[in-house]
């Protein structure tokens, strides 16, 4: 029973963090850009929402402001890379580091409690209560997480099917071709970084409201969690090729990651061990497909050798 409750919480977390993983998917997989902005833009999303709510701004507006703030963060990485010609990884790290100071400025201190304020979660919970449905906060988070995940997937599905969205996907494949076809690749990268970090900030905003607090350190390691979700999804749903199904795989990966975490915590490990465990999961998920294909190749060679002996 206790474990089932833990799984419910894991699914809730998984769905909220899936929005971050979808953002990372845009940069890492579609654009083929190693964007390190993530940890910073996630925290910015949470901090902006917290300070807005604490100042009496309606939670949904706070979420929208976080969305814009995340886009700005992505835009800065794009600017550093495009205009100052800083290598992509370093450009993201510079933004991430500077966001730490900026987030402290936004919040005015290291953390901001939200327990005494209204959030989207509490509003939706009241809404359900008013029609006679008393849902636990985890279940409310699942409803809200699902809503935003579906919304984000639909918008991304549409956007990456448009002319400019197609060009962003092509930029991730072959920049020289994109320029030869008359598209400025600085623009495609800039737009993709903005969209990705807007999504990531939405995740930060929702996670902050769900936890009832924003903390300037809450984004540490977020990038690895996003990557873990992506690679777990790819390992589990290996055969999917369509863009829509790939995004669903990312969401599935995010939820499974949280269930693994819940399991590990049940086994008695502490939350302090989580970063190490996450890194192990990513390493394993990246290693497994390679190991499997190497094993298959070896099998094929052995078979071929046998056949040539028999011949």
């Amino acid at each position, binding site marked *: 029973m206790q474990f089932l409750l833990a799984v419910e919480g894991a699914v809730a977390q998984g769905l909220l963090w899936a929005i971050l993983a979808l953002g990372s998917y845009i940069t890492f997989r579609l654009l083929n850009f190693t964007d390190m902005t993530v940890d910073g833009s996630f925290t910015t999303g949470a901090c902006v929402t917290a300070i807005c709510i604490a100042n009496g701004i309606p939670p949904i507006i706070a979420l929208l402001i976080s969305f814009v703030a995340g886009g700005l963060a992505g835009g800065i990485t794009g600017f550093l890379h495009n205009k100052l010609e800083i290598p992509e990884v370093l450009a993201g790290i510079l933004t991430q580091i500077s966001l730490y100071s900026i987030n402290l400025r936004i919040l005015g201190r290291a953390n901001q409690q939200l327990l005494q304020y209204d959030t989207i979660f509490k509003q939706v919970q009241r809404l359900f209560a008013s029609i006679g449905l008393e849902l636990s906060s985890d279940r409310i988070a699942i409803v809200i997480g699902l809503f935003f995940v579906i919304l984000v997937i639909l918008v991304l599905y549409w*956007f990456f099917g448009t*002319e*400019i969205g*197609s060009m962003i996907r092509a930029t991730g494949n*072959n920049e020289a*071709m994109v*320029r030869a*076809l*008359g598209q*400025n690749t600085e623009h495609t990268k800039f737009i993709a970084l903005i969209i990705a970090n807007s999504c990531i900030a939405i995740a930060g905003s929702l996670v902050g409201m769900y936890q009832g607090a924003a903390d300037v350190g809450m984004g540490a390691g977020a990038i690895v969690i996003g990557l873990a979700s992506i690679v777990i999804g790819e390992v589990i749903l290996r055969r999917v090729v369509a863009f829509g199904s790939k995004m669903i795989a990312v969401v599935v990966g995010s939820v499974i990651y949280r269930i693994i975490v819940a399991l590990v915590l049940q086994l008695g490990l502490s939350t302090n061990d989580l970063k190490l465990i996450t890194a192990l999961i990513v390493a394993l998920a990246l290693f497994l497909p390679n190991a499997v294909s190497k094993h298959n190749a070896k099998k094929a060679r052995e078979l071929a050798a046998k056949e040539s002996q028999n011949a």
Partner: protein
Amino acid sequence: MLKIENLTKTFDPGTVNEKRVIDQLNLQISQGDFITVIGGNGAGKSTMLNLICGVYPADGGKIILAGSEIQDMPEHKRAKDLGRVFQDPLMGTAANMQLDENLALAFRRGKRRGLNWGILEEEREIYQKRLARLGLGLENRLSDKIGLLSGGQRQAVTLLMATLNTPKLLLLDEHTAALDPNTAEIVLDLTDQIIVEQNLTALMVTHNMQAAIDHGNRLIMMDEGKIIYDVRGAEKRNLKVEDLLRLFQELSAGGGPSDTMLG
């Protein structure tokens, strides 16, 4: 159509590797010219094409395309008027995208890209017809990922992509060099066919002397960043491979070994 005046390019200036690759180059191309370009390794053929496209800026000189100076324009703006096929079959297409998606990207070369849907249903019919004319059976593979096609097929698709939206100038850089002789022949024939049908102006770099003689109406030979030989019409048609090799030895700065011309 295209006029190049005193074009100059030096790589790694001010270092021990400093190398003047294009040296006060002049070239005038008329509408409808189909020029084959030959020359030894490192003669500057690819660099000349890259300078026309704006892959990197020239150090000096002018490039005038259809009356307007383009040497200071960024690459993606010049692309409006230029069709390009690279030597490497992987360079011209997006491997993880479908065949029809790739064509749709090319169909919009030179147009503003916005939030309209990236590919329309009626376009697919156009693509199917154009692909059928290649005679490679690709018309039934519109939703295959390009990465699944062979090098020759990809090169034929790149050629189609470069000319889908009629360019003012078509630039081909050894676009059959990575293909087996049979496929190279097919792609070369397609090139001829498309250039004639659309009445294109084209520059084609090749290491195949015979192809350089058989195709096009004009031939230029490059060496050390300059054009050392320029021939057209009947005189070109009557050339033999031996003539070209002999000319190369006579005219090139080093008087160098003519086998470098054969790549």
